[in-house]
């Protein structure tokens, strides 16, 4: 390769570079589309599991709404406080408080409760619920069709040894998909911090409950008496905890005769199973 080749190629490269550089400069001036770079940044911060808890179609549309429509920054349940703070920082506004919530299945007896009939067909509780009012005797019991389990975007719902679905509390991001999926409305989003819950939804009278399920609230009222803060009341044959009053003392847990009140600080995470925590947490 002679010296003239080097000079020539340098010249060509220079000329081409200058020419295209000018073209680029011109086009960047006339063709540029103004897009807020914050949208992409917020998109990156969001967890991108597209769970829909924020009420938008997906994470990217939520990001867009934050920037363009000044949507609140605390709507992302899976991301929690960390995400909310990050986005608030990016947007230059004060972060709103966000409470971590996890899904809670208000039934622990589907697997041991009495069966009404043999079902055959699509194994989905939303279908089972349509057939003669569900396959379990209890009208408020889990049908064990696992629609919630399949709807969970982060695989936080599993079956226990009684084949009842349960929520792995540390995996749950609180998106609320299972809440809308459950055909019997057994699932609600509960505050993560309040770790004592009543796992039954039966509004039947006590005598009827005993007939169909071993772990059903019979509305006996023992928990009401045991509660030092008046946080429990019996509502339509079912004990309900008022979380604004509950101080999570755990006294109700011990007095419940049918063991439907659970305390997640104790050494079990799986209702009806009494399993050591953390053991079954992997998929």
């Amino acid at each position, binding site marked *: 390769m002679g010296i003239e080749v080097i000079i020539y190629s340098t010249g060509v490269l220079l000329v081409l570079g200058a020419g295209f550089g000018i073209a680029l400069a011109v086009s960047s001036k006339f063709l540029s589309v103004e897009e807020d770079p914050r949208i992409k940044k917020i998109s990156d911060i969001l967890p991108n599991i597209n769970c829909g808890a924020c009420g938008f179609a997906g994470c990217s549309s939520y990001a867009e709404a934050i920037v363009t429509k000044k949507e609140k920054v605390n709507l992302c349940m899976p991301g929690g406080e960390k995400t909310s703070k990050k986005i608030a920082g990016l947007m230059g506004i004060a972060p709103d408080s966000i409470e971590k919530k996890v899904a809670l299945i208000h039934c622990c007896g589907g697997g041991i409760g009495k069966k*009404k*009939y043999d079902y*055959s*067909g*699509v194994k*989905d509780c*939303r*279908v089972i619920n*349509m*057939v*003669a*009012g*569900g396959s379990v005797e209890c*009208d408020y019991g889990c049908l064990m069709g696992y629609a919630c389990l399949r*709807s969970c975007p982060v695989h936080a719902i599993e079956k226990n040894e009684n084949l009842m679905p349960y929520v792995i509390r540390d995996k749950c991001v609180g998106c609320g998909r299972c809440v*809308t999926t459950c*055909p019997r409305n057994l699932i609600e989003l509960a505050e993560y911090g309040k770790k004592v819950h009543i796992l039954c939804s039966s509004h039947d009278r006590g005598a009827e409950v005993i007939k169909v399920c071993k772990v059903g609230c019979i509305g006996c009222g023992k928990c009401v008496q045991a509660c030092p803060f008046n946080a429990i009341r019996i509502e339509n044959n079912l004990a309900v905890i008022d979380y604004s009053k509950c101080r999570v003392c755990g006294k109700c847990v011990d007095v419940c005769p049918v063991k439907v009140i659970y305390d997640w600080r104790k050494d079990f995470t799986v209702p009806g199973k009494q399993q050591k925590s953390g053991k079954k947490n992997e998929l």
Partner: protein
Amino acid sequence: MKARVTFKGGIHPPENKGLCGELSIKDFPPPETAVLPLQQSLGSASEPVVKKGDKVKKGTLIARSKGYISSNLHSSVSGEVIDIRKSPHPLLGEANAIIIKSDNRDEPERDYSAEEASADSLSSGEILELIQNAGIVGLGGATFPAHVKLNPPADKPIKTFIINGAECEPYLTSDHSLMLECADRILKGAALIKKMLKAEKCLIAIEENKKDAIALFRQKIIQLKNAEGLQVFPLKVKYPQGAEKQLIYTLTGKEVPSGGLPMDVSVLVHNIGTVFAVYEAVFLRKPLFERIVTVSGKGIKNPANWRVRIGTTFKMLVNHSGLADKKIKKLIMGGPMMGLAQYTDEVPVVKATSGILVLTSDEAADFEHLACIRCGKCVSVCPMGLMPAEISKMVEKGRIDTAKSIGLMDCMECGSCNYICPSGTNLLQYIKLGKYEYLRSKNVKR
């Protein structure tokens, strides 16, 4: 006139109508205790007007309709109300019902055997009131209150009144036997409704496998004096010939628009049993407290058609007919295609009960669920022109909106696709799930 046109699709399941033997209607004895669920029709449940301890007679009003789309309920036995409590319901699983203990006297509220002479001179409003008071609902199975259907809005006049005697469901012969026994009365009821609606034509549609009924009706119409516009229309034998929209298409060539009602094309369809009930309500002033029920299936020793009081439990009927010595698998209210499987025989006969089937395990065979092989049979049999396999796949994947866009809500749940599917996939169950999910998501958005 011979049926020439027919709708697209449909299936030919084994009929098994011969099981019942001769088609006479036998009277079933009134039950010891009648269980009368408050929810007997579409719409809201009726409100009880009796309380525990009240004495009632046969035909006494015991629950009044609540709201426009609702129906009255009458006692089917004479006796005492012993309770109003939750009890098994063939459609809902469990629902509130009035329990009446019979005093075995079977005393009627009034004499239901004499025909009122004045019926011909009643005005439309008076007739409607009689129908409403009698608590008549669509007896084909849809249980839509008859007085609502018979009172179309003024801007949608009815030109053609169709009487549905297709009875395309296998096994069932209750309509057939009713047509054979009460042709005169049905025709009287038909003429009454036709007059009331000011309809031009009244077509009686009967499937060709009921040759005797077709002949009988033709003969009766010839004998009738004012038979103008009254016509018998033989239908090709296939399922679902009795489906409202398909029936209208076959008889008039008009398609009920998607999401619309028959009155949108100036047609009204009533089941043959409903027409008979209207006759009884208007001419005999008899409320709807009994109906014809086919008790059949290979699990039944002596299948027959019975005139049964509403509130009789399935158990009584089944025990009376005797169980065959075979492996019994299912108890079904209605026909095998659209009927509802029951989990207990404690459920009572309701106004919607056209048949009770006890199926053996070789009739109601469970299929091993195999993968869809895309054979397209479901597409070719779907009378609504849908692609059931596609819809159910979309629902299975959770894409309800896509399913909606390819006709999810147009499905009428006739079950043809599910019947024909060689892979035994549960197409209809997914479609039902999709409908449920769609309605639910719509409610959430509101």
